[in-house]
């Protein structure tokens, strides 16, 4: 009788340790997950708490101050005058140009892969797309330097920066285009073909309109990936003091300005507000694309 009680106790103890181990494991998973999401909160908190003071209308309508102006403002304990207009216009110019380069080619290649799904050559193209997606952005900056800065514009230029950014966008757009088209039911396409519609019209009137939200999401996400790129622009667009719309001239961009502010002790206060603006750009792009995806799923 006694031995049975001891046995049962031992058995229960075994169960308890197993339950305990299970709970400890879950606890570790939860703690680590919490640690994982904490940086995003901390980073955004830092940007807002340090950056909001500098943000006013002038921040969007004036160009970056020079270091002397910033020094005087610092000496008088005022906020630094000027803004990041040259960065914002430069970023918009280069993102627009990169999109013009990458979107048409990306869509066409995506359609090509969708059409020739299983062919050997299509697989090669797919592998190359993957390789380009994996190339570090600084290496793409090197390439843009040799092809565009040295070869076309003979000097640092917005075009060179846009080329580097465009090459970064390309694989993302190709991939999202192919994935989106794969989701479209074959029957829709076949209905068009059965009516004798020529293929380019199927693409323009059936595939692109049906997959429009997916294609747009892919493009927006691609833009949100490149908008904060700094390294390739240092080798290509270089930066400029004023607003520049000439694609053959050096151009500033928000990330380039952040880098300049970071390296200038007088202007270092501007890094947080500029980073905050850049983050808001990225977040808006992400939110719009999430919204589109959610709408599509409903």
């Amino acid at each position, binding site marked *: 009788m006694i031995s049975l009680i001891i046995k049962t106790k031992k058995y229960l103890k075994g169960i308890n340790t197993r339950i305990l181990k299970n709970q400890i494991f879950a606890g*570790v998973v939860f703690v680590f997950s919490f640690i994982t*999401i904490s940086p995003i909160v*901390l980073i955004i908190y830092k940007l807002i708490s340090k950056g909001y003071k500098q943000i006013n209308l002038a921040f969007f309508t004036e160009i970056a101050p020079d270091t002397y102006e910033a020094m005087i403002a610092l000496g008088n304990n005022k906020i630094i005058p000027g803004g990041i207009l040259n960065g914002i216009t430069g970023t918009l110019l280069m993102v627009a140009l990169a999109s013009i380069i990458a979107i048409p080619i990306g869509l066409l290649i995506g359609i090509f892969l969708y059409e020739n799904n299983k062919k050997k050559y299509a697989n090669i193209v797919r592998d190359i797309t993957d390789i380009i997606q994996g190339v570090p952005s600084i290496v793409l900056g090197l390439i843009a330097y040799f092809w565009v800065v040295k070869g076309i514009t003979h000097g640092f230029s917005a075009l060179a920066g846009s080329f580097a950014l465009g090459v970064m966008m390309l694989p993302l757009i190709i991939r999202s285009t192919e994935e989106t088209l794969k989701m479209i039911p074959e029957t829709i396409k076949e209905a068009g073909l059965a009516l004798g519609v020529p*293929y380019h019209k199927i693409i323009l009137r059936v595939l692109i309109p049906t997959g429009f939200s997916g294609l747009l999401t892919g493009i927006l996400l691609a833009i949100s990936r490149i908008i*904060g790129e700094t390294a390739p622009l*240092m080798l290509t667009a270089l930066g400029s003091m004023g607003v520049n719309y000439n694609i053959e001239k050096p151009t500033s961009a928000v990330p380039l300005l952040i880098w300049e502010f970071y390296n200038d002790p007088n202007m270092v206060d501007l890094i947080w507000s500029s980073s905050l603006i850049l983050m808001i750009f990225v977040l808006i792009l992400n939110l719009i694309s999430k919204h589109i995806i959610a709408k599509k799923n409903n």
Partner: protein
Amino acid sequence: MLNSEKNTKILLFLASLTIVLMASGMVLTLINGSIPIFKEFGINFIFSTKWNPTEGKEAYGALPFIAGTIITSIIAILICFPLAFSTSLFIGEYYRGKKLAKIVGTMVDMLAGIPSIVYGLWGFYVLRPLIVDLGFNSQGYGIFTAGIILAIMIIPYATSITTEIIMMVSNDLKEAGYSLGATRKDVILQIIIPNARSGIFSSYILAFGRALGETMAVTMLIGNTNIIPKSIFDTGNTMASVIANQFGEADGLKLSALIAIGLLLFVITGLINGTGKLLIRKLS
């Protein structure tokens, strides 16, 4: 009109040809730019640790940068693994399909949206002082600091693929485990992980590939000294950051050395990513 079918096909084919030509052009440009340095130093360029741009005494070796790149990325993946894997379990198993999982997933995705330079700033002004306060290192710069930031940066890439793979493990298997009295921990360790092993492995290889090429955040934190780091708190330099730092004033042999480093980086990331993709393809 008759030829429009054919024209569309030709147009699509030509588009696909641009990316093939572009990729080959890139490799050729990098090889072409690296020829002078390999002519001067031969294969020693890869294995030498000397980096001296002074004219007359010029010596270039890429080993400190190769070592720095690989070491920081390994530190990053070691820190990233427990965090990202736990998060994958949180999203894909513990709170699967629940609202909380969605919120956590969105927050992890947001990490991928933060520009590299903002990570650099945060690392410089928040993380670096912390490292100094903890007494690891007097300046706070170094491969450890850079590794932590890199780990945060690659978490979203590792998490998203691993979560998907964990969710693909068949419910029948898991239920069979539970019916035998297994706890959730047992199911995770003995059913989910063994089944998803190769997928998890390849997702961390891809995250590793990401870490290799990161530039700005690393440049701002690693200390930029051209030596092979001997301890985890030493400063160092990576291939990407030496290109970013020294490109501005480079010409002649030094420029060629930087391009050769770019070529090596291209090859290394290509190999790592290729391995990861190959493993994933084998799975499906």
